[in-house]
């Protein structure tokens, strides 16, 4: 991480590398496809989505394959970010100040590292749910090959797959809201990659201070 020139010559700060941005959008685009086709099969009122996305049969055929793409993206994310997503002793204080964070009283919130504890929750929430969705999804992919005496597996998958999805939808709504409307500059950081120094200092103070110390040492 410190090998990358995070403090850019133009006075901005590199927030996400090209590889990170690419993997993020591989996960993002595949998740949105899975969400839309999944919602079409979830409710008759949303079945039209599957029609718009080609046809209901195509949506059913592609959904599991795009699920594999999503899982690959999640694995790449794990390899890039898992080390930075570990819980630290400071996280507990952050969670205790979550009310201040929600009310935008950011001066009363402990300063965050490269990823704040909320982002860590998002990461691990998606990671574990992706595994649950894969396992239940494999059963739903090939229902005809589940023997009748192992039918409980199929019935469990029928329940677990949507429950797990609903958990990711909760994370997804908050993630999209915060990444676009609530934290201005965050969306740009995952498109172009950089943020202003003020943004880095405000939202990820510990991380930014560490970058300054690292660059001073060089």
């Amino acid at each position, binding site marked *: 991480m410190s090998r990358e020139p995070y403090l850019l010559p133009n006075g901005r700060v590199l927030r996400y590398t090209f590889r990170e941005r690419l993997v993020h959008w591989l996960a993002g685009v595949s998740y949105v496809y899975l969400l839309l086709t999944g919602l079409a*099969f979830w409710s008759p009122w949303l079945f039209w989505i599957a029609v718009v996305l080609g046809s209901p049969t195509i949506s*059913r055929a592609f959904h599991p394959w795009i699920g594999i793409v999503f899982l690959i993206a999640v694995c790449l994310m794990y390899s890039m970010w898992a080390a930075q997503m570990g819980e630290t002793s400071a996280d507990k204080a952050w969670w205790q100040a979550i009310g201040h964070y929600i009310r935008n009283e950011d001066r009363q919130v402990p300063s965050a590292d490269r990823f704040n504890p909320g982002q860590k929750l998002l990461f691990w929430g998606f990671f574990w749910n992706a595994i649950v969705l894969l396992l239940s999804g494999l059963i739903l992919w090939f229902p005809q090959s589940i023997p009748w005496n192992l039918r409980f597996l199929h019935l469990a998958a029928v*329940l677990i797959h949507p429950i797990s999805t*609903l958990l990711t939808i*909760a994370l997804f*709504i908050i993630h999209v809201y915060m990444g676009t409307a*609530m934290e201005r500059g965050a969306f740009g950081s995952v498109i172009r990659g950089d943020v*202003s120094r*003020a943004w880095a200092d405000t939202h990820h103070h510990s991380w930014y201070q560490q970058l300054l110390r690292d660059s001073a040492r060089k």
Partner: protein
Amino acid sequence: MSQASTEIIRISAHAGPVPGAGIDREFQVCKLVDTTTCIGCKACEVACLEWNGYPFSETTFANTYQTMPETTWNYWNLIKFNEHERADGSLMLLMRKDQCMHCEDPGCLAACPADGAIVQYANGIVDFQEAHCIGCGYCISGCPFNIPRFSPAARKVFKCTLCNDRVSQGLEPACIKACPTGCLHFGTKTEMKELAETRAQQLRDQSGFPDAGVYDPAGVSGTHVIYVLHDAKNPEAYGGLPKDPHIPWAVQLWKKPLKWIGNLGIIAGVVGVFVHYLRFGPKVVREDELRSHGEIK
């Protein structure tokens, strides 16, 4: 139903009542399978294949009369042979024609996510509309009788139609037509239920089967295929006929409470972040502070 447009209810300047007025037609159809008179000849299987245009499937031999283990996507009707030892040590060969039960409360239809892929007609027939089937196989999870079969080639699910194409033209299903012993009957649900109960009574009173009875399970609100069994207390002995079939609780939980909790949750989430934005707005970047520190210009 289709006769509704030709049924006369009032006639101008007509002396006397309207001919045929007050006729009450029952639309609910039913197939009765009397397992006590089945001889396992498999004529019904052949008739089913012939009418529906499927080839005869390759048979297997497992030291029993069973010609193949179960129905397949293009073999909808199969007699299940079961050697059953009775309490007195005597042996019975139970033969049950296995096919879709055409539940009054069909689990396949409840579990299906595709608009129009499964329909239930007013006569009680539950029919798969393969043109609308998306091949997801959720119907397999909803069926308590292990009936829907996935065709890997068509990527769609198939099952017995109760010969809806014949029944809608006033004919009886192909299997009924072929049965040489009269163990298969077809008619209205009321008539078949009466016939079945009469036969069960006869078995109890005259044939030494005190537990004989009719299989028309209440858990799925009755079926449009009913059985007369020698031993109605032990339907499992007839090749896995469930004692108390019902739509699996997982499917009921998924399609009713979970769906509404989920829908409300999603709507609440979207409304929630919108209200948050109205109340608290975006987070503000501390530019002034950095400027005073001289970190940015």
